[in-house]
């Protein structure tokens, strides 16, 4: 019986000779990631257990991206814990200030993750790197502490679910719409504990940015990891950025899947997830009249240069609707620099946008874009739970950057075709 790509990667990170879903394994870890709100607890646990030195200072990555630039004294204290630990341990990859960006964009940009890796991060959106053909999943702080000590993680080998994509996306349809559509169909626990493997002829029509957005959101369906077999697009991206080539794996033709889902990508329209679950999706034509107070374009889901280009193309020569706050956050210094050189920031400024520094801030209701009671936002982010971006009586609507930009101009949720 053949193996899926997820099973193959995990098997290569153990001393076992065979692997099956349901097995409890200890896997060797290539990249262990933490940030300013999960790593302090991990560091505490690491010290309490007499941690000594981390298993490999080149493989433990700390990114101070959540409540930064430090939003208050407590947050500054959290970052200080990271900084001192990074110094003491001699970590190769510690990022803060102007070298720092939203972690799940920064890591692939810096070539820290390559295909075939096992990546464990104390952040639920660590699943993003599945887009590169890595096994990548989120854990809690204590799991991270254990990985920092031992270089290994305990995992239950997940069953895989195959999601077969057909056709090319239409003009304003992106990876965001594909993943929202899938979550809408299977629900927020539709892939609980499973690997979501995306395949089919539709994959080659998706950019790497699209795939990163999709893998980023598999956690919103409860999945352990999302994965795309690497292709020429992946290989070219990694070659340009990483020192390690990685291992390009693919599922065997006779690999076993627990479920199969077919998606006609060509038939999709832009999707909007209504409050308060990412699965509460509607096509843009069925949205109705929903006036909004804020539009947020950013985050590890949709704050890449590709996303900013789409938003800028629609915002060029237009302005945010009166009374609406438009916030654009390029996710890393590299994305920021590209947006600057390409003239995108000029367009956002002229559209009356606030351009924020790279940070996770507003997406999780941390800072720099909090919603008041009764306010509504369209966000290119990944979660719209109660209170996610602020007051428990505020509302978040998830959408792609094109819908976000069009909505900013019209002051209500709208598709780009309405401009």
């Amino acid at each position, binding site marked *: 019986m053949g193996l899926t790509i997820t099973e193959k990667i995990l098997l290569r990170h*153990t*001393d076992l000779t065979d692997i099956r879903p349901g097995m*409890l*394994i*200890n896997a*060797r870890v290539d990249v262990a990631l933490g940030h300013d*709100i*999960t790593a*302090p*607890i991990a560091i*505490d*646990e690491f010290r*309490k*257990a*007499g941690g000594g030195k981390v298993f490999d200072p080149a493989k433990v990555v700390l990114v101070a991206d*959540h*409540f930064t630039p430090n*939003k*208050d004294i*407590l*947050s500054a*204290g*959290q970052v200080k814990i990271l900084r001192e630990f990074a110094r003491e341990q001699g970590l190769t990859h510690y990022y803060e200030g102007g070298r720092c960006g939203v972690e799940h964009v920064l890591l692939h940009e810096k070539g820290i993750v390559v295909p075939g890796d096992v990546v464990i*991060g*104390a*952040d*639920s959106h*660590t699943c993003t790197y599945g887009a590169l053909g890595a096994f990548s999943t*989120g*854990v*809690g*702080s*204590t*799991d991270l*502490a*254990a990985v920092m*000590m*031992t270089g*290994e993680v*305990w995992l239950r080998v997940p069953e895989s679910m195959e999601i077969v994509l057909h056709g090319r996306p239409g003009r304003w349809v992106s990876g965001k719409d594909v993943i929202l559509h899938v979550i809408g169909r299977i629900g*927020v*626990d539709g892939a*609980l*504990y499973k690997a979501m493997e995306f395949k089919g002829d539709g994959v080659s029509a998706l950019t790497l940015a699209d795939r990163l957005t999709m893998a980023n959101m598999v*956690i919103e369906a*409860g999945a*352990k990891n999302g994965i795309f077999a690497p292709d020429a697009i992946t290989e070219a991206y990694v070659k340009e950025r990483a020192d390690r080539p990685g291992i390009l794996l693919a599922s065997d033709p006779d690999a076993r899947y627990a479920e199969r889902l077919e998606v006609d990508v060509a038939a999709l329209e832009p999707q909007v997830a209504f409050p308060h*679950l990412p699965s509460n999706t509607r096509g843009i034509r069925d949205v109705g009249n929903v006036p909004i107070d804020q539009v947020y374009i950013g985050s590890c889901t949709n704050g890449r240069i590709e996303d900013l280009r789409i938003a800028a193309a629609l915002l060029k020569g237009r302005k945010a609707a009166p009374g609406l706050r438009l916030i654009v956050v390029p996710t890393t210094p590299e994305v920021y620099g590209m947006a600057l050189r390409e003239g995108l920031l000029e367009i956002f400024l002229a559209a009356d946008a606030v351009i924020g520094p790279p940070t996770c801030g507003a997406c*999780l*209701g*941390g800072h720099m874009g909090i919603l008041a009671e009764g306010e509504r936002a369209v966000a290119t982010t990944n*979660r719209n*739970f*109660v*209170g*996610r971006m602020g007051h*428990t009586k505020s509302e978040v609507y998830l959408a792609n950057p094109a819908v976000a930009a069009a909505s900013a101009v019209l002051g209500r949720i709208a598709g780009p075709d309405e401009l």
Partner: protein
Amino acid sequence: MKFRGRVWKFGDNVDTDVIYPARYMNIHDPKQMGAHCMEDADPDFLKKIRPGDIIVAGENFGCGSSREHAPIAIREAGLSCVVARSFARIFYRNAFNMGLPIFESAELWDRVPEGAEIEVDGAAGTIRFLGESGESLAIQPIPPFMLELLKDGGLMKHLEKKRSAGEGHS
């Protein structure tokens, strides 16, 4: 491993943002985390509960973020355990790693009214309704590895124990 307490019911897909809102994630001290337990699901929750009480929830409890603050807040608020139809996977890991006992039961939510007193027996794999009916339900036994984690007091203590016993990790 027996837990006795009153039942507080929550629905499906209770996410980590309502269990422990992100705005408190600059808090580092576990004791203080307990003070915000379930705050965005029910602002008066902490005023109502007594030590040992039990959360009973529907599907996918703890979905969303990886924040360990969520199970820590439940533990520190004095709740003894959580029984849900199912758990989100990161929350599931975190709970065992933190030493917070959690149990899956497909039936309990439909059968138990809020405020009822129950006894969860993790070792025997039963939930007993205290009071007149006295009936009991079978629950999924905790997988052996998870039981080991709970017995050792969480993941780090488990690792320490393995380390001092000189065992390898793979």
